């Protein structure tokens, strides 16, 4: 080992003049002025969360007729008003709601819905149902907001990149474990692997690849540093859903406006004996979101952050024969943040007037929520350029 270290040092010395990228400069020095100081965190609940057992219409008899076995009894519901209450796992979430920071958007969906997780998720990612669009809605938003191609504009915490952040001009930073957002490579090769080889101007494609490489190298180091330096007293619960990693980046001063993360691996696909599992997962989601907001408040960033929570579709209104629920349609979305005007938005779908398949009829095109974020949070008034259509925004923010 000693020999290795010695030769490495000597070796690096021979590379005098080579520029090692990966400075420790504060993030704000990257772009000139940040395009926006606002931040949007989108949380995907993969697998199709059961909306009817998340926000329970406990005053509606039809709900209990549809779900005689798995309906949450009214006395267990965490009531928020005389019609609705949250799943018993969502204590922290109810507190957020009661403090006026949670907007519930009812009946979100789209026409001719797909019942495939994969396909429907792609529709939500792109914001173009039945379209085959190649860029994500957040990717297109980034391209519209930021002409400077800020290398930190989009961050996606996951094992692989979500279609939602796929952009034409922007290179999303995608990582899962900050300690492993790193290239594999042996000790003695690190110097060469982390070196910018200055192969500039040979072709557009090579320049692009070098930028991607620089971004990876650059970001991986900074993200690891942010993570290493991040200490918080806040408890995010059992599954922080990457929100603690996002907090570490915000805390380190990253000027990233768009973050994407989620509850992964189709976890909400609750076909069988869902009651306890679902409650537990909702508790994790609720604890993580509440913890995140608390943490942001601690570092005085809470008013700059809005969270959107969605799932690719809801579940069938009636329970199935295995104490679970099958794939459905319309669902709630949640818009959460210190600057959000809490309450109900949109129209709840009728539980008695289901479609031919026994599904809720959607009442709110989900892209209205996207349009709201684009127009009223990021102040970009041409959401139709991004969403390829006119979707009336809500005003969630005071």
């Amino acid at each position, binding site marked *: 080992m000693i020999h290795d270290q010695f030769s490495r040092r000597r070796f690096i010395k021979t590379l005098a003049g080579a520029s090692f990228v990966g400075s420790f400069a504060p993030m704000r020095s990257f772009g000139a002025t940040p395009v926006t100081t606002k931040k949007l965190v989108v949380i995907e609940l993969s697998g199709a969360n059961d909306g009817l057992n998340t926000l329970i219409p406990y005053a509606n008899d039809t709900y209990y007729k549809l779900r005689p076995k798995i309906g949450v009894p009214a006395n267990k519901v965490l009531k928020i008003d005389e019609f609705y209450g949250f799943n018993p796992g969502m204590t922290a979430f109810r507190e957020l709601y009661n403090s006026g920071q949670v907007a519930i958007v009812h009946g979100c969906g789209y026409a001719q819905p797909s019942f495939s997780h994969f396909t429907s998720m792609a529709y939500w990612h792109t914001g173009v149902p039945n379209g085959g669009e190649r860029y994500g809605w957040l990717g297109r938003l980034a391209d519209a907001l930021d002409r400077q191609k800020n290398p930190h504009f989009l961050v996606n915490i996951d094992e692989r990149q979500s279609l939602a952040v796929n952009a034409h001009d922007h290179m999303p930073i995608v990582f899962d474990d900050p300690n492993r957002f790193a290239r594999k490579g042996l000790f003695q090769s690190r110097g060469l692997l982390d070196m910018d080889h200055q192969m500039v101007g040979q072709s557009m494609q090579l320049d692009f690849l070098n930028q991607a490489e620089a971004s*990876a190298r650059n970001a991986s180091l900074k993200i690891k540093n942010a993570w290493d330096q991040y200490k918080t007293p806040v408890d995010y619960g059992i599954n922080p859903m990457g929100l603690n990693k996002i907090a570490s980046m915000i805390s380190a001063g990253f000027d990233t406006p768009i973050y994407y993360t989620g509850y992964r691996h189709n976890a909400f696909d609750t076909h069988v004996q869902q009651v306890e599992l679902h409650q537990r997962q909702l508790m994790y989601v609720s604890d993580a979101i509440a913890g995140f907001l608390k943490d942001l408040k601690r570092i005085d960033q809470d008013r700059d952050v809005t969270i959107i929570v969605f799932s690719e579709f809801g579940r069938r209104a009636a329970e199935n024969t295995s104490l679970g629920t099958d794939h459905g349609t319309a669902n709630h979305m949640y818009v959460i943040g210190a600057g959000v005007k809490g309450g109900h938005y949109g129209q709840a779908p009728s539980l008695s007037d289901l479609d031919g398949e026994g599904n809720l009829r959607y009442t709110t095109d989900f892209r209205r929520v996207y349009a709201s974020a684009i127009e009223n949070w990021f102040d970009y008034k041409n959401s139709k350029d991004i969403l390829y259509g006119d979707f009336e925004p809500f005003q969630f923010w005071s």
Partner: protein
Amino acid sequence: MRQFQRFLTIFFLVVGIHGVYAQSPDPWKNDLGPIAASDWNNRAAAHLLERAGFGGTPTEIKKLAAMKPAQAVDYLVSYKKIPNQLPPFEESGIWEPGFDHFPSSRPAATEMAKKTGESMGVQVKPGGNRTLQPIADKYLYWLRASLLETQRVGYWWGNRMLQTKRPLEEKMTLFWHGHFANNEDKVRDYRKMLQQNELFRKEATGNFRTLLIEVAKNPAMLVYLDAAVNVKGAPNENFAREIMELFTMGAGNYTERDIQEAARAFTGWYFKDLTFVQNNDLHDAGLKSIFGKTGNFDGVQVIDLILSRQETSEFVASKLYRYFVREDVSPQMRSQLGKLFRDAHYEIAPFLRTIFLSKNFYSKDSIATHVKSPVEFVISTYKKLELTELPGIVDFNDVTDVMGQKLLFPPNVAGWPEGKSWITPGLLMIRNNFIYDTMFAPINFVPRDRVPEQFYQNVPVAEKLSRGLDVTSATKPDGKEMVSMSSTADREEEFNTGLASYVAWRRAIENVKPIVRAPAKVNLTAMVKKAKCQTTVDVVHLFVGQFLSVPISEQTQLQIAKLLESDLGTNDMSQAQSYMEDALRNTLHVILALPAYQLG
């Protein structure tokens, strides 16, 4: 030594071209005229093999470079002359006739069984608990088994790409797969995916009209674009829309009305098992008006109407061009290519021959400017390592999937967006890490097609059943609270999908043949010995010449040579012959980690 000199020649040739590169526009750009014999060399041959195939080994490049350019192009394009003894796909034999009318969903399966007493050839239990359990088991079994078998088809195809003597055949098959992109997730029958793959291969460089008609009648496509619900009186526009938008004309060249009318012409097109059938009772034989023409058109006539449109020739020709040559297509080039394709009567081979022989194809704008797709990246890496078998570690399907291109599972009907979209910072690292894992195979590799990942509940279910828990308790998600729970009440229910999922998994790995899990048999020592490298610089030149299409600065190469020297403890390769393998692998990893390695 001669080998080495050859590489030096390539190297300096490369640097020489590079010198011109950054300065003046290349007069060859957009010139579709043929190159001269004097323009033909190793680099040109290597470029042709990169694009018309999956890269070349030094031997293959040398062989091609020794020909005249027209001969070399013809060697690749008129490949049917070359004997190609590759084994057919070796089926596991999982198909059963009962899957012929595979239910659209699990509820559909169990509902049908409730009504008729059977589904998929499985009877409902006459009594006892969970009378529909065999149905649920069978349903999930086929989904799992067909998925695994399709992944084996992916392996088989990947092996063909690696082993074939007709690289263009596989390259075109891949093109058509991305063009007529169907996904096993929806088709849910590996046989139909395999059949479609063989269709693409059979018609790879034939006539586009023939291919288009065959594709329109192909069972996988019929399933994928909802032919089942395209019937007289209730036409479904899915196929009619995609054939115009994605397969032939491109968006904006037709009206919604054209689509609605075309959909009627395709009504009644369906299949029985693996064969196309036209159901005349469901076919709408009435008058249709498409592109301003009126008639009792059927599907084939609609295809001919589409092919008569100039946009179609331009759309398909440009897409081929972007796949093989480069991404930017000027409007003039677009119409030139369209004309070329029309003049060839939609024959692919002569069109490709012109492209591959053109000055434009060898211009600096084209050479080494193509971002390799994940499949190209992985296969060409293996090929240049001179492997003869696709390694089982790491998993070919997984590694291409995580890079964004899993064969037989394209993301949607639009296929894979090529070019820049293959690359993100994270994906670059994943590509780098694939190289690392090829050089230094993970010793903790787990085959995820056989061993369920954590988020599947199958392992805990199996474990709890073995401990004697009842099905209700065993399938209750998550083990934590189970420790204290006594196994008492097994619920009365029609079926349990948690149980079915476990049973399906177990039967699938019983019945589907395993993929052999062996790491890449990399032998860089042999490569270096064969090339008679004397110094570490020789080795770096050898690797750069054999693997990269983009020139690397001499300074960088010297730095890498220093690393190798430090690893070996000598600059004299003859001294290091007995122990150099890992150091060579480390060196090659550093070279292939260069961003430039993404280009071909």
